[in-house]
């Protein structure tokens, strides 16, 4: 973890230095690409202004709520479809259609239906996260060996015990793979939703900067968004490492990172 942070910090410093050099040496006009110090002072100005905190809070809130709903829905539907294959066959074309439709095309519809507040953004985030989670959950639940079903019958486990104590832990590795994919897409979905219409949020800040021709605001918003996405992904990884300490997959990853 610390090693990963260190190498990330090294990369960031290198990029900032290169950026600075390019701006100075190539004399890039500030309205196209402001120098890093201009971004920093813009960030401090925005941070001093109470609104930046509010923008971050709104986007983060949407991401967390949407991601939780999408994750829970993905696991529940994945489990249901494995348990009831007939329902799965009936619903899967519908779900696939929902997934293949460009999210950016769904967003205006959601805004029309759910208004301009968090509703449509949370829905959009839930839509993009639930799919990889559901795919992982289905892979996991359908590969639990039948001898474990026998064990559950012998021990007279309740359906909930069977799910919570046998099937879910077995399925966690592919579920976490889905959660990680979902976590990187959640922030993107939040921005897409906010760009379509919002009163707060980093995506809204982005469009505000564009309207005012202020590149530094746009860049501040981008940096905050990517940091948020990165942090969110790392948080999921951390939870995964703790939850799957028993699993072989964590040994090779531990060595790789």
């Amino acid at each position, binding site marked *: 973890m610390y090693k990963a942070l260190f190498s990330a910090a090294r990369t960031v410093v290198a990029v900032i230095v290169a950026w600075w050099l390019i701006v100075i040496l190539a004399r890039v006009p500030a309205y196209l690409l402001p120098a890093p110090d201009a971004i920093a002072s813009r960030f401090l100005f925005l941070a001093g202004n109470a609104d930046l905190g509010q923008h971050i809070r709104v986007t983060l809130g949407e991401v967390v709520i949407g991601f939780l709903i999408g994750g829970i829905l993905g696991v529940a539907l994945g489990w249901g479809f494995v348990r009831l294959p007939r329902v799965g066959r009936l619903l899967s074309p519908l779900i696939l259609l929902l997934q293949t439709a460009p999210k950016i095309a769904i967003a205006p519809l959601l805004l029309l239906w759910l208004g301009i507040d968090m509703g449509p953004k949370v829905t959009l985030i839930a839509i993009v996260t639930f799919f990889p989670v559901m795919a992982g959950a289905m892979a996991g639940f359908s590969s639990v*060996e039948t*001898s*474990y079903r*026998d*064990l559950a*019958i*012998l*021990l*007279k*486990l309740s359906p909930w*015990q069977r799910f919570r*104590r*046998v099937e879910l*832990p077995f399925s966690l590795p592919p579920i976490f793979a889905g959660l990680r994919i979902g976590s990187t897409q959640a922030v993107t979905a939040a921005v897409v939703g906010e760009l379509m219409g919002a009163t707060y949020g980093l995506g809204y800040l982005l469009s505000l900067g564009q309207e005012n021709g202020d590149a530094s605001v746009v860049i501040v918003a981008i940096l905050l968004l990517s940091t948020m996405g990165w942090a969110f992904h790392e948080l999921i990884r951390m939870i995964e490492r703790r939850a799957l300490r*028993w*699993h*072989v997959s964590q040994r090779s990853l531990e060595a790789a990172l």
Partner: protein
Amino acid sequence: MIQIRGVHKEFAVDGAKVTALSPTDLDVRRGEFVSIIGPSGCGKSTLLRIVAGLETASGGTIAMTEARSPAQRVGFVFQEPVLLPWLTALENVRFPLDTAGVARQEAEDVASRLLRLVGLAGFENALPRTLSGGMRQRVSIARALSYDPLLLLMDEPFGALDLITRDRLNDELLAIWSETRKTVIFVTHSVEEAAYLSDRVIVMSPRPGAIRSIYEVDFPRPRGEATKLDPAFHHLMANLRRDLQ
């Protein structure tokens, strides 16, 4: 303690009726060690799974006397250990107690006593993947004993182990059996294992699966290397082999 009367099992494959087990009668006494031996497809595992409630018979009755309650669970040991890989050895053994709502401390005491009984003291906190195949199967046996079932069903429990480990586990199983006084039904396809362990050996023949012969085995206990050198032991094995032809 268990009376099996006319239990049979048929199923359909592509519309054709296949008989897995012809009507079978079998009585097992309390505390008895009974082995069922036969080639693959003779229905021995089917019979065991029906007794365990994992499969339903097409007909016949199974009466369990002395069952303490209808919810009484039977102990079952599979060919594979079927352990939960995210739980330690101790947690695996106490799993049936935890899910049945037994108090923490009590479950802990029972589980560590059983791990000692199967020779795994000191491995309480080991995850299954760090244990050898033989050790995992011992954990599995301890788990099957954790809720103190009257009847222990074993479905080729040592079939996947090497011969040396298997011999050792056979001796340990006899020690565990004499200490816990469980009634054991043991399915195997090893003639030697059946002859060495049992009070009675049931030989089954395939297609359709049915009991072919029954042997009373009265070698003195405790059994050991001397049993395996006894000419009567070899005579029994020869008979079993002949019946399996």
